[in-house]
């Protein structure tokens, strides 16, 4: 089923359609190289109800394009195909395993008089390769996080197992893709870090070390507050995707009961535990429940080298959430969970209120921070740190931005320009709507600023951005 969400444009009768997912498939050309066996290449196809021959045709076309473009540059075959109606993205996730995503271009439907069918105008230049290319790669990363690599599935249970896994995962995952609200932040796939003073940070370190020492089963720990990362024992790339899962899927699912009142039926049983506010977000909802199952989601990390399969325990007290990762070869028992709850619960509750207090103190010191006039997005490739004053709230379902999509598009374009060269550079754009958009790249960092100053000239805009750098980023080294 296609999800088309019409949006009313300025014109009374015009109807605007946002980009949407047409199809999504995974194939491996080496699986059906003989004539007549083409269907074997297809490992997953969405929508599944598409007729078999059409599937084969579409896969064959992609295969051909990739193969053809390879002749020009063997190492970098085509990444996307632009057509009037849609855009196709190709991604070789693993050796010979290709994932293809077809996105329908946004379009405007203009009604015609005299009962003639409306004219459809495709806006083929509106969507950015970088944004959707990143979305596609993220699909794979998310799959890999929970299922491991395609190759390992093949080793374990052949094509059948792989197809089973793909089907199970993508059937649900694709429903959560919201292509209309993808933007520059998807390109970055960054992590928001929680600003914290040194002492509180050290306390968290100490907490993590102590827990890891007394519960030696724990292999890695990650610590988040307010959906922002503070500490990760996982490597950066694994943390990036886990962070994405936590903040766009797991936490939003659990935030409602937390916001609900104490007596609300939404609130999980706090089985008489008044000593602390700790609870499991994964695994057993209630430890006291004799029927409770001690099963946790499994994740795969370090797939490049050590290839570890881990239990993912997410435990939360107030706004502090901790992920404990334990080797999947260990069976987790009720005793272990109770021990963890007893040890972590009280400490984490205390720590969470410490952090909250410290955070409020810092906010008071820095003054009543009115939202600066600047709208900006900052990203550091080195530590994946991202900060946006443009996005109000980003969850799986919606990404609310406070600026017009046209401006977001300009940001994306500047980002593409930056990606082309290695040098540090700065781009200043005057948008149609009187906004100024400034992009700045220094070493690994990128900063995008949107200024709403109609009559400002280039020099004033430049000064303004310098001022922003001095106030917001005085700690870091920006080359002018």
């Amino acid at each position: 089923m296609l999800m088309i969400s019409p949006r009313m444009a300025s014109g009374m009768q015009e109807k605007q359609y946002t980009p949407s997912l047409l199809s999504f498939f995974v194939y491996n050309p080496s699986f059906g190289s003989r004539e007549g066996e083409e269907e074997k290449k297809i490992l997953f196809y969405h929508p599944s109800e598409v007729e078999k021959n059409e599937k084969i045709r579409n896969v064959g076309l992609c295969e051909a394009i990739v193969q053809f473009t390879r002749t020009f540059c063997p190492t970098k075959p085509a990444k996307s195909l632009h057509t009037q109606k849609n855009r196709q993205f190709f991604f070789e996730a693993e050796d010979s395993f290709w994932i293809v995503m077809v996105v329908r271009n946004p379009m405007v439907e203009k009604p015609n008089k005299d009962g003639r069918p409306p004219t459809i105008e495709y806006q083929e230049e509106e969507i950015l390769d970088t944004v959707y290319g990143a979305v596609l790669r993220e699909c794979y990363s998310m799959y890999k996080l929970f299922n491991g690599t395609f190759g390992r599935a093949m080793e374990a249970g052949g094509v059948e197992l792989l197809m089973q896994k793909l089907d199970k995962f993508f059937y649900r995952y694709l429903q959560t893709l919201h292509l209309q609200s993808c933007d520059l932040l998807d390109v970055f796939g960054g992590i928001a870090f929680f600003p914290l003073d040194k002492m509180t940070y050290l306390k968290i370190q100490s907490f993590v070390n102590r827990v890891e020492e007394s519960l030696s089963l724990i292999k890695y720990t990650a610590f988040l507050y307010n959906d922002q990362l503070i500490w990760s024992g996982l490597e950066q790339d694994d943390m990036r995707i886990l962070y994405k899962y936590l903040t766009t899927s797991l936490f939003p699912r659990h935030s409602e009961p937390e916001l609900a009142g104490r007596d609300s039926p939404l609130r999980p049983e706090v089985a008489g535990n008044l000593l602390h506010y700790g609870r499991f977000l994964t695994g057993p909802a209630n430890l006291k429940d004799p029927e409770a199952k001690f099963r946790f989601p499994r994740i795969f990390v370090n797939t490049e080298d050590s290839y570890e399969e881990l239990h993912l325990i997410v435990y939360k007290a107030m706004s502090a959430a901790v992920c404990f990762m334990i080797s999947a070869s260990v069976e987790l028992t009720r005793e272990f969970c109770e021990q963890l709850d007893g040890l972590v619960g009280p400490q984490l509750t205390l720590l969470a209120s410490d952090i909250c207090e410290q955070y409020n103190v810092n906010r008071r010191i820095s003054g009543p921070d009115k939202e600066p006039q600047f709208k900006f997005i900052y990203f550091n490739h080195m530590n994946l740190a991202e900060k946006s004053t443009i996005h109000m709230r980003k969850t799986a379902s919606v990404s609310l931005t406070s600026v017009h999509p046209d401006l977001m598009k300009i940001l994306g374009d500047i980002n593409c320009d930056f990606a082309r060269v290695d040098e540090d550079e700065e781009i200043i754009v005057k948008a149609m709507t009187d906004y100024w958009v400034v992009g700045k790249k220094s070493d690994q960092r990128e900063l995008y600023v949107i200024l709403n100053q109609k009559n400002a000239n280039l020099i004033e805009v430049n000064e303004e951005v310098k001022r922003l750098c001095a106030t917001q980023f005085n700690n870091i080294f920006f080359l002018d």
Partner: protein
Amino acid sequence: MSEEHYLELCENPVQFENASSVNNVFFDEANKQVFAVRSGGATGVVVKGPDDKNSVAFRMDDKGEVKCIKFSIGNKILAVQRTPKSVDFISFIPDYPHLECSQECKMKNANILGFCWTNWNEIVFITDQGIEFYQVLPDKRSLKLLKSQSVNVNWYMYCPETAVILLSTTAQGNVLQPFAFKSGTMSKMPKFEIELPVVPKPAKLNLTERDIAVATIYGQLYVMYLKHHSRTTDSPCAEVVLYQLPREGSCKKTNVLKLNTTGKFALNVVDNLVVVHHQSSQTSIIFDIKLREPDCALNVHQPVLPGRSIHPYRIPLTGPAAVPTQPPVPCELYSSSWSVFQPDIIISASEGYLWYLQVKLPLTVNLLQDKGKLMDFLLRRRDCKMVILSVCAQMLNGGDKGGLPVVATVFDKLNQVYKEYLEAEQTYTVATESGPSRGSAARERPVRTQAVIDQSDMYTHVLSSFSEKKDTCHKFIIAVLMEYIRSLNQVQITVQHYLYELVIKMLVQHNLFYMLHQFLQYHVLSDSKPLVNQQLLHTAQLFHESTYPPAHQLSLDMLKRLSTANDEIVEVLLSRQQVLGALRFIRSVGGHDNISARKFLDAARQTTDQMLFYTIFRFFEQRNLRLRGSSSFNPGEHCEEHVVYFKQVFGEQALMKQVTV
């Protein structure tokens, strides 16, 4: 069971001729001298003090049995009591005639119980009817009465350290009247009553000097009362009750030490610890009145450590009779012939030894399992530094039970003491800098006791060797280092760069770059130049940047935050061939007039980017023009080869035209 004899008798006791029918032995607590008086002094008096300086030998006429004999402070005047009514004086002042005189007590029918020197020429007679305070005038061969006070006295006790005399008064003897003496003045302090377990009827002397001791503990004067058990009260065991005697104000009962047994006891004070010897079990226990028991009512103390006997002591056989191969004879400990004096003296008159009692701290550490309590205990001891450091090392290396929480507790305790010292030092510095104008400014420089264990101590004796241990999990090592840094931060002590270096070294060794990165991101490893340099060194030498590219950005950020490291920033950028970036940076901070043209031209040449070289060259030509009115380089700048190269590549005409004045 290995016996940890944590108490010992000192190795070099004061030896004297043992007491016998012809040799009387006296001990003076004030000067810590032992007097061996042979035949009333006629055949010699030998005085042995704690060191040879205080040892004297002389003869005096035998004028009857000596009851008491003491030198004044500094061995100036000798006082000898032979009769109940009078005391004789002999002057020992060098180059002065051996003058003698005698003084009778003023009060009629009074008997002299004893006397105490409070100065080189001031003496107090204690009689059964009061006290008399005299000044000795050796040149006039007479004494001048300074002050006297009449009161019925059962017995007395003297604390030479504080020059306080305690008199036992009333029929039961339990009302104690202290007097304090100070250069010619005598002041009466408030009297106080010792609570007796049973009040005898009719009233009779019930409190004897055997059960009372006076000593200074933690700088305060205490009267210690050995309260024996009584069948009529609830407490079946003996206890020591401490009364604190402040200089001003009245005396109050402050501490109770539970002995948990009965029998004969003796008290010593060593290193501010109250040592209680128990004769029948031949063991001693120690109490620290600053150590609070969590499960006890306030100021009721249990022994810090389990009771142990004093370390066996062997008396070496000396003198002509001794054969060298003959083994030393074990000395009988807790002998009934021992006399115990405050604060830490044990005398065996029959064997002719005076020992100082000592606590062997290293042997206490295994008796106290609770590491936090052990630290509290050790931090208050005199020679504690090496013991504490060894406890820390042992705690980290032994794969110990307590783990990180215990490590954290120990660090916190050490750093609390460390911080208090730093603060005192700080206040002192401020006070002295602001000048002695203020009345209260005459403070003393804070004393750095051994308990102040600073970062370099920890580094040298504990952490550096610990971090090199191969058999210890690196995770634990890093956790411990971070715990120490956390503890320092908690009390706002600036962390020294070598600790950060240790952490960085560990992280780098184990390829934990992302961890290091996160620490830097939260400024946990605060910036300091050595740190950045180290960082750069690591980047350059160990991983050639490629293995962990962010190191470059990290170090630049740290340099930026330093704000005094512009030169270093330029160096980093140049090393990365970002010549234009370096130039723009130095211009933005206004340092471009002072930089070396040659350095930038060298760097530009290395990039083999000719346009870049052109740009840089042009920049410096313009600078030359602006600064000196000519675009050519000075010979001192050593840019000749670059000028040649420039001409070669771009032609002579490309050089900036010389401006003719």
